[in-house]
């Protein structure tokens, strides 16, 4: 795989992750658990979708279709998001745990990419780092509070964590282009990222009184990066493009 192909692989998985989780999180807008939280969660969903658009724009500069076409006309098997991002929103416990697990991985990914040899990506990473920092502040505050809240909230958060865990490991599924990206100093690689991620989230989960599932049970839900998805993604995409596909050539 040459470096352009490897770069596209990286950009696709990042952009697709952001779009799909942003779309899922946007489902809470207007029906969130507390007015103030509704507003905050919606802002973060908007940030994610905005970031995905910028990443698709980078792909467009590399010769791929424009952002709208990429987001609104591909089928599930052409998407490279991790399966974690496509799962339904569930109750707020699941949405928060997913937000926590995903956003810490994303923050660390962008943190490293600020020094990427691919300048356009480094610039985006610098630009969006502050947004993502807020997302992780929000996520860790919630996880701590609900973990330490009452019996019910603690049990709910633990069960959501158990449910999400193997999917979260799927974020770090390695791509074919990794070695090239590492050699070219574009991206540090998923293994390194996963290690940093574990180091970052473990103390917060401990403080929250939540336990990471036993390592013997870890089975990463891989496949998303290669276009294999759960049954939830295609209906999500059909819904997202319902209006757009009335006439994809129209100016909406």
């Amino acid at each position, binding site marked *: 795989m040459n470096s352009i192909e490897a770069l596209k692989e990286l950009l696709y998985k990042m952009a697709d992750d952001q779009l799909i989780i942003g779309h899922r999180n946007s*489902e809470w807008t207007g*029906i969130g658990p*507390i*007015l*103030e*939280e509704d*507003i*905050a969660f919606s*802002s973060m969903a908007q940030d994610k979708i905005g970031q995905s658009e910028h990443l698709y724009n980078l792909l467009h500069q590399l010769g791929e279709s424009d952002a709208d076409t990429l987001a609104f006309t591909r089928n599930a098997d052409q998407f490279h998001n991790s399966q974690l991002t496509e799962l*339904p929103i569930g109750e707020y416990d699941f949405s928060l745990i997913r937000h926590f697990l995903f956003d810490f991985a994303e923050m660390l990914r962008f943190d490293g990419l600020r020094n990427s040899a691919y300048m356009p990506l480094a610039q985006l990473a610098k630009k969006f780092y502050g947004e993502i920092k*807020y997302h992780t*502040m*929000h996520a860790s*505050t919630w996880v701590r*509070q609900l973990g330490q809240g009452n019996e019910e909230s603690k049990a709910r958060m633990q069960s959501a964590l158990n449910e999400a865990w193997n999917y979260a490991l799927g974020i770090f599924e390695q791509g074919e282009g990794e070695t090239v990206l590492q050699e070219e100093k574009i991206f540090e690689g998923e293994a390194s990222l996963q290690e940093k991620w574990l180091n970052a989230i473990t103390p917060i989960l401990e403080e929250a009184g939540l336990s990471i599932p036993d390592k013997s049970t870890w089975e990463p839900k891989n496949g998303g990066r290669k276009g294999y998805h759960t049954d939830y993604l295609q209906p999500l995409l059909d*819904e997202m493009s319902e209006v757009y596909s009335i006439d994809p050539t129209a100016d909406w």
Partner: protein
Amino acid sequence: MAEENNEKIDSLDPRIMRASLDHSDIDPLESLDQFQTFEVFHQAKRGAQHQHVGIVHAPNPEMALLYAKEQYARRGVTANLWVVPSKYVFATSYFDDDMFDTTPEKIHRDPATYKVMDKIKEYKERQEA
């Protein structure tokens, strides 16, 4: 008001369809659901005064700050935010606002009322005469 029944709601909103709602009523919220109140102060730029912009309800200052950011700083520019529990704000009473009545008349504090140039001009004219 909808009659209480378990008939599913048929919505145009796919999010609502996924939630599979029915018409049944819920218990009223308890007053226990009420969070504390924080007054929010917003500073647009370093060097500017923090301005009171409104309130958020939150269980603690940490959450209040997270909420203040999105409710009062999701547009425009922001350098800093404060949140202060409303219960720690003490104010004068509007009933006593007559204590401020004569303040504008206290012109000895007003720089514009000090007009030395007239004196200097007059002095110079006198010297030249």
